[in-house]
C-alpha cells in the first residue's frame, strides 16, 4: 500500500491534467457534465493531499523519481511537511471555489462553461505542480502553466477584465523571465537543476556574484508573481474584474503559491547560511512593512468592494513576507508566515465569494450600494462579517493567531517597529472593513422602513461561504490549542530554522 502512496503526488497533477481534456471533450457532448467531472477530480485530489500529509507526518518525506531516472538527471517530486501542508490548503480552497462556481458561472459566463472548467482544471494542474515538484526548472514550467491559465480565467469575463488580464500577462511574463534567468544563472554555476542537488553544490559559491545575482533575480521574479508591495500593480485590477471564484483563488491561493515557491527556493536551494551572509531578509521585511501600510491605506480609499479586498491582499502579502523576513532571526522560524498563508486563504476567499454573491444577486460592485443588505442577504453578510472579524484579529479568529505569532516574532528579533506597523495596519483594517460592515448592517437607507424580503443566493453558493466563514474561527481555535503546530515545527527543523543564532 505504501507503494501506492508514493504515486499520489504525481497523480494529483496527472489526473488534473487528464480531467481538463476530458472536460473539453465530454463538455462538447453534454455541457452540464463539465462541473461534475471537475468535482470528482477535485474530491479525489483533496483526498490524495490529505493522504499525502498523513503519510509525510507518519513515515517521512516522499521522493518520487519520474520515469525512474535518478534525481540529478531526472525530475524528482518531493513531498515534505511544507509541501503537503500547502497542498492541502490549495486543494481545500479550490474545492470550495468549485462548489461556488457551479451557479455563478452558469449565471456569469453561460456560453463559456466548458472552457472555464477546462482552464480551471489546468490552473489547478499548474498550482499542484508548483507545490509538489523538487526540480527548479520543473517549478518554472508549472508556474507558467498556472499563470497562463490564470490570465485566461481573468480575461474570461471580457470587457474591462481583458485589460486587467493583459496587464497581468505582461507583468507576469516579466516575472517569469526573471525567475528563469535566475535558474539559468544557477545552472551555469552548478550544472544542476534538482533542488536538493543545488543545495549541496552551491555552498562553495555563496560569495560568487552570479549566485547572488541569481537569488536577486528569483526574488524579483517571484515578488511580481506574489504581488509584493512595489511590484503589486497588476493585482488590484486583476482581482477586481475576474469572476469572483477566480478572485478568491487568485487572492487565496495563486499569490500564496508564489510565496511558497519563494520560501522553497530561498530555504531549500539557498540555505539559511546563504541568507545570513547578506541583509536580504532584513530588506525584505522592511519592504513588507511598507507593503502592509501602503496596501491598507490604499484599501481605505477604494469605493469598489473587490478592489478594496484586492488592496487588502497586498497588505496581507506584506504580513506573510514580513513573517518570512523575520524567520531567520526568531525561534518561531516559518510558523507565522505559514499560519498566515492559511488565515489569508480562508478569510480572503470567503470575502471575495461574498462580494461575488452581491454581484450575482444584484450586480452591486460599490460599497455604498450595499445599504441594508444585511437584512436582505443575512447569511452571506454573516459570512463576510465573520471573515472580516477573523482577519482583523478578533480572538480566537485566524487573524488573531497570525498577529499574535508575528508580534512575538518581531519582539524576539528586537525589531519593535514592526509591532507598531502591525498595530497601525490593524487600525487601518478596522477602518476599511468597518466601512463595509456599516453599510451592510447599520445604514439602512430610505427604503429601511419598508418590509424586506430575504433574498439569498442559491445553496450551492451559500454553503462554501458559510463553511469558510465558520472555519475562520474554528481553525483559529485549533491553532490556539497548538495541536497542528508540530507540522510547522517539522518545517522549521527541515530548514534548520527556529534556533536563535
Amino acid at each position, binding site marked *: 500500500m505504501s*507503494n*501506492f502512496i*508514493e*504515486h499520489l503526488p*504525481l497523480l494529483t497533477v*496527472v489526473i488534473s*491534467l*487528464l480531467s481538463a*481534456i*476530458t472536460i*473539453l*471533450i465530454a463538455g*462538447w457532448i453534454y455541457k452540464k457534465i463539465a462541473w461534475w467531472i471537475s468535482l470528482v477530480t477535485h474530491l479525489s485530489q483533496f483526498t490524495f493531499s490529505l493522504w499525502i500529509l498523513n503519510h509525510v507526518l507518519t513515515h517521512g518525506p516522499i521522493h*518520487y*523519481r*519520474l*520515469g*525512474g531516472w535518478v534525481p540529478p538527471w531526472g525530475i524528482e517530486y518531493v513531498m515534505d511537511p511544507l509541501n503537503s501542508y500547502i497542498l492541502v490548503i490549495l486543494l481545500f480552497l479550490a474545492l470550495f471555489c468549485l462548489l461556488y462556481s457551479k451557479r455563478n458561472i452558469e449565471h456569469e459566463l453561460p456560453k463559456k462553461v466548458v472552457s472555464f472548467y477546462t482552464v480551471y482544471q489546468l490552473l489547478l494542474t499548474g498550482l499542484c505542480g508548483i507545490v509538489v515538484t523538487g526540480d527548479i526548472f520543473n517549478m518554472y514550467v508549472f508556474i507558467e502553466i498556472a499563470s497562463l491559465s490564470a490570465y485566461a480565467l481573468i480575461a474570461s469575463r471580457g470587457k474591462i477584465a481583458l485589460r486587467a488580464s493583459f496587464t497581468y500577462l505582461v507583468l507576469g511574463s516579466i516575472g517569469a523571465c526573471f525567475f528563469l534567468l535566475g535558474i539559468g544563472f544557477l545552472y551555469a554555476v552548478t550544472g544542476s537543476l534538482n533542488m536538493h542537488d543545488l543545495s549541496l553544490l552551491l555552498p562553495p559559491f555563496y560569495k560568487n556574484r552570479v549566485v547572488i545575482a541569481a537569488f536577486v533575480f528569483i526574488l524579483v521574479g517571484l515578488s511580481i508573481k506574489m504581488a509584493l508591495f512595489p511590484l503589486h500593480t497588476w493585482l488590484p485590477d486583476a482581482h477586481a474584474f475576474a469572476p469572483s471564484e477566480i478572485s478568491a483563488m487568485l487572492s487565496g491561493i495563486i499569490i500564496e503559491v508564489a510565496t511558497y515557491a519563494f520560501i522553497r527556493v530561498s530555504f531549500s536551494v539557498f540555505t539559511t547560511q546563504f541568507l545570513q551572509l547578506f541583509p536580504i531578509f532584513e530588506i525584505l521585511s522592511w519592504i513588507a512593512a511598507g507593503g502592509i501600510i501602503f496596501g491598507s491605506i490604499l484599501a481605505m480609499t477604494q469605493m469598489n468592494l473587490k478592489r478594496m479586498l484586492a488592496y487588502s491582499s497586498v497588505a496581507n502579502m506584506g504580513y506573510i513576507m514580513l513573517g518570512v523576513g523575520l524567520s531567520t532571526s526568531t525561534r518561531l522560524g516559518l510558523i507565522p508566515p505559514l499560519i498566515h498563508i492559511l488565515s489569508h486563504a480562508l478569510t480572503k476567499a470567503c470575502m471575495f465569494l461574498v462580494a461575488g454573491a452581491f454581484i450575482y444577486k444584484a450586480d452591486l460592485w460599490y460599497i455604498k450600494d450595499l445599504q441594508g443588505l444585511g437584512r436582505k442577504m443575512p447569511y452571506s453578510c454573516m459570512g463576510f462579517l465573520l471573515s472580516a472579524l477573523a482577519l482583523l484579529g478578533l480572538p480566537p479568529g485566524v487573524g488573531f493567531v497570525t498577529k499574535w505569532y508575528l508580534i512575538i516574532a518581531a519582539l524576539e528579533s528586537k525589531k519593535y517597529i514592526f509591532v507598531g506597523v502591525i498595530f497601525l495596519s490593524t487600525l487601518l483594517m478596522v477602518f476599511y472593513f468597518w466601512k463595509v460592515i456599516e453599510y451592510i448592517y447599520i445604514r439602512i437607507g430610505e427604503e429601511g422602513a419598508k418590509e424586506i424580503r430575504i433574498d439569498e443566493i442559491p445553496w450551492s453558493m451559500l454553503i462554501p461561504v458559510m463553511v469558510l466563514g465558520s472555519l475562520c474561527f474554528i481553525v483559529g481555535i485549533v491553532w490556539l490549542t497548538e495541536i497542528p503546530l508540530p507540522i510547522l515545527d517539522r518545517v522549521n527543523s527541515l530548514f534548520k530554522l527556529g534556533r536563535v543564532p
Partner: protein
Amino acid sequence: MNEKERDVIVETVSRVMIPFIQLYALYVIIHGSGGPGGGFQGGVVFASSFILYVIAFNLAGGRKRFPESANTLFSSLGLYIYGGIGLLAILFTRGMAQYLNYGFIPFTSHFEENRALGMDFVEMGIGITVMAIIASIFFDLAQREEPVGEKEEK
C-alpha cells in the same frame, strides 16, 4: 475569395506539395526519438500543410476539412496519449514502476525496446496536439481578420 482570383499554378503545386509535407511531418515525428526533429517540429510541419491549403484555396474550405470539433478532439487525443502512456507504466507494474517509465510497458520483451517504443508514442501524442493547436491558432487569427478585410474592400 471568389472564383476569378484563383491561381492555377499555386493550386496545382500545393495539391502536389501537401501530401509530401504531411508525409515529411510524419517522418519527423516518428524519427523524433532517435534523430533530429520530434513531436513538436513534426506537428508544426503538419499544421503548415493546412496553412498552405488555406492560402492556396480558401479559408472556408480549409475549415470544412479540419473543423473546430476535430481540433478539440485531436488536441485532447494527443494529451491523452502523452499522459496515458505514462500511466500505463504504473498500471502494468501495479505501482512498481514510476510514471513515464516506459521500459516497464510490455510492448515487447526487451526493456530498452519498450522504452524506445514508449518514447515514440509520446512523440506521436505531442505531434497530434501541436498540429491541432497550431492549426487552431492559425484559423482563429485568419477568421478574425476576414470580416474587417471584406469591409475595407467595399
